[in-house]
Each structure stands twice: as C-alpha cells, then as structure tokens.
C-alpha cells in the first residue's frame, strides 16, 4: 500500500492534473492503491520509493501506455481518456529506455523525433549543443557512452513545447555539471507554468516540490 502526502485539497480547482484514487494490480498483486494528488501549473512532483515499488508503472500510467486498474487521471478537469489527443499533445514522456536508435546518430534520432512531433515544437535548432553533444552528434549512437545517450535523449526537453514533462530517472548516468543544468532547465520550465513529474534518487531541492511515496508491496503484506 502507499501513503500520499497530499496537502493540496484546497487548491483542487486550480489544479491542472489530478490523480484520483489510482490503484494498480498486476497478476493478482496490488502494486499500489489510493494514490491521490493534485498538481497545478508550475509545480513539480517527485515519485519516490524503493526499486520495484511501481514508480515507472505510475509514470507509464500518466503517459497513457497503461491504464489504472481503478481510479482516474484528470487533465484540466477532464478524464484523460476523453481528451486523449489533447493530453498527449501537452505531454512529453521520457522513459528509462531512451528510444534512440543505435545505428543512427544523435542528430538523426532527434530529427526523427522532431518530425514525429512537428506540431508541438519550439524553433530551437541547437538542442544537441545545449546538452553538450556538439562534437559527437553525427556519430552513430552505439559509439556514445551511457551519459551521452542520456543527454541525447534529454535534448528533447529543449525543443518540446509540451506543458507536462514526465521524466523517468532523468538524472541517471549524467555528470554533476549537466545535472545542475538539467535542474535549472526544470526550474525554468516550472517558472513558465509547466508541470514536471519525475522519479529520481537525487535530492533535488526545488521549491514547492510535491511527493508521492510508494512503498514496496512485499513489505506491507
């Protein structure tokens, strides 16, 4: 089971994303239940919990690749299933798998992704420079290190116009300097009225951060 630290019942009306009594069951096992959370513009939510507690599952639910067993997710007051296209248009999801093609370069990978999301981009042509991949951007991705791959994937943050960022472990494998840059990028997004939901084992210390804490299902039984 899980406990939610929900202090925002009073701001429910101004919330842009609301999780209502979310529960998820897989193979007869209840992974989590009673997840309630309301997030407004400019707010960041961190999902915490030990490995295997369902953080990624919850993120995949929020990106609509999984549907919750119980409960509903509301975007701007409407169930996401009813406003699917609009919600997905506002969403940028970076899972723990990069989605990068190993035989294409970082440049080609990003170009492909930009074409996929053509209607939803900022006119920013040097995203790979922003993540420090100037020199290696034309090299096939199988020559890149884990950190460089992560950077290539995070370059999407510099071109997406999406309001809601859902990031699975964005800080893994990257060095301290880029971690600071990424943190600033997140804060900048929040200042512009964006919403960030992420999992990380880092202590981010961003003001007004909200938390959902998942506990290991095995412990509670």
């Amino acid at each position, binding site marked *: 089971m899980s406990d939610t630290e929900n202090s925002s019942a009073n701001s429910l009306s101004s919330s842009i994303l609301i999780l209502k009594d979310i529960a998820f069951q897989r193979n007869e096992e209840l992974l989590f239940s009673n997840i309630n959370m309301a997030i407004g513009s400019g707010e960041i939510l961190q999902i915490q919990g030990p490995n295997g507690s369902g953080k990624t599952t919850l993120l*995949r639910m929020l*990106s*609509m*690749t*999984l*549907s919750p067993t119980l409960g509903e997710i509301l975007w701007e007051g409407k169930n996401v299933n009813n406003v*699917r*296209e*609009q*919600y*997905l*248009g506002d*969403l940028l*999801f970076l*899972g*723990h*798998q*990069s*989605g*990068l*093609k*190993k*035989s*294409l370069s970082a440049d*080609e990978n990003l170009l*492909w*992704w930009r*074409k*996929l*999301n*053509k*209607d939803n981009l900022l006119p920013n042509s040097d995203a790979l420079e922003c993540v420090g991949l100037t020199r290696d951007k034309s090299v096939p991705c199988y020559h890149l290190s884990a950190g460089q791959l992560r950077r290539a994937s995070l370059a999407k943050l510099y071109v997406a116009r999406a309001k809601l960022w859902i990031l699975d472990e964005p800080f893994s494998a990257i060095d301290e300097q880029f971690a600071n840059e990424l943190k600033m990028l997140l804060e900048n997004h929040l200042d512009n009225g964006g919403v960030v939901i992420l999992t990380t084992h880092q202590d981010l210390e961003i003001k007004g951060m909200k938390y959902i804490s998942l506990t290991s299902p095995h412990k509670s039984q």
Partner: protein
Amino acid sequence: MTNTGFVAIFRRDLLLAVRHRGDLSNPIIFFFIIIALVPLGLTPESSRLSEIAPGMLWITALLASLLSLNSMFQDDYNDGALEQIMILPQPLYFIVLAKIIVHWLVTGLPLSLLAPVFGMMLSLPEYGYLPLMLSLLIGTATLSLLGAIGSALTLPLDKEGFLLPLIVMPFYMPILIFGSSTVQFAIDGLSILSPLAVMGSLFALFLFVAPYVAAGALRLSVQG
C-alpha cells in the same frame, strides 16, 4: 497532421533498413539457398522441376517473409522507441501502416522483382514469370499486413519465436494457395484473372483491417 507520424516513421525505417544492409539481404539469400538446393535434392530434370516450381517458389517466398517478421516491431519495443511512437497524439493506424509498407519494401518487393531469376533456376516456363511476379507483389504485401498482426501480438514473448509462425500460418494458407495457383494457371494456359482477383480482394481487405488489428495488439502488448 495525421501524416506527420506516417512520413517520419516511413523515412526513419527506410534509413534504418539501409543502415542494416546485412539484414536486408537475408530473405533473398534464404530464398536463393532453398531454390539452389531443390534441383540437387529432388531432380535436375527440367520437366519435373517446372512442375513443382510454382509451389516451391511460393512456399519459399512465404517462409522468407515469415523469417523477417520478427524485426517489424521488436527493435522499437526493446529500445523504447515504440513507447515514444504510441504516445503521439495521432492515430496509430497510419504509423503501423508505415511500418508495414517499409517491411514490404525491404522484403516482399525485392523478392518479387528477383522472382524470375529464381524461376529460371527451377526451369519455370518464361510465360510464368510475369504471373509469378504479379502474384508475389500482391501476395507478399498481404503477408506483411497479416504478419504485422502476429508480430504485434507476440511482442512481449521475445524468446518464444515459435508462436509467431503458429499464429500467422493459418492466415497465410489462402495466399499460398491462390498465389501458387496463379502461376500454375499461367503455365497450364488458363486465365490467371480469377486467382489474382481473389488475392487482390484479400489484399484490399487486409489493407484496411490489419493495421487496425495490429495497432490494437500493440496497445495490449505494451501494457504487459
């Protein structure tokens, strides 16, 4: 709008196919090996070879197409690209269709174009070449469409490769029957219009149905 996903997937998959040139020639090499072995294993006598040629050519084309099915969605599934594709605010139908078309362009089309060469190796009469190519062009496209369904359904079962052939084989059978009879009819001097028409209608049917079903199967597979 709806076409951005189609165009982007289409171009990237073609680019990937070009980068993996080795995989590209696999079905053709497979085809070549079988056709080269048939005269050695059965008989080098051209009259008997030309008797079995239509069926042999079609069975081999079917197996070659089957062998290449695994790659349709598996790579995208393994590296997370499928997830990125599926959360696009666009209908999955066109995206799946783009992947099917590329699959056909890199497997079915080259096989169909090279078919007269393989036909020659099996002493297929010359007037059978064109019917063979025509039936393969339509037939392999239908195989790719059907294969997409099976490929999407078996996506989470990466290691259990035998399931995919089991699922798609029954649906492949009518195409094999009408495909080889198209060639047989041509050799026997009959009109090839009726078997070709059946193949054409099967193709038209699955062109509309298969991407929908495959898209639904993908959604299920990604949940698992």
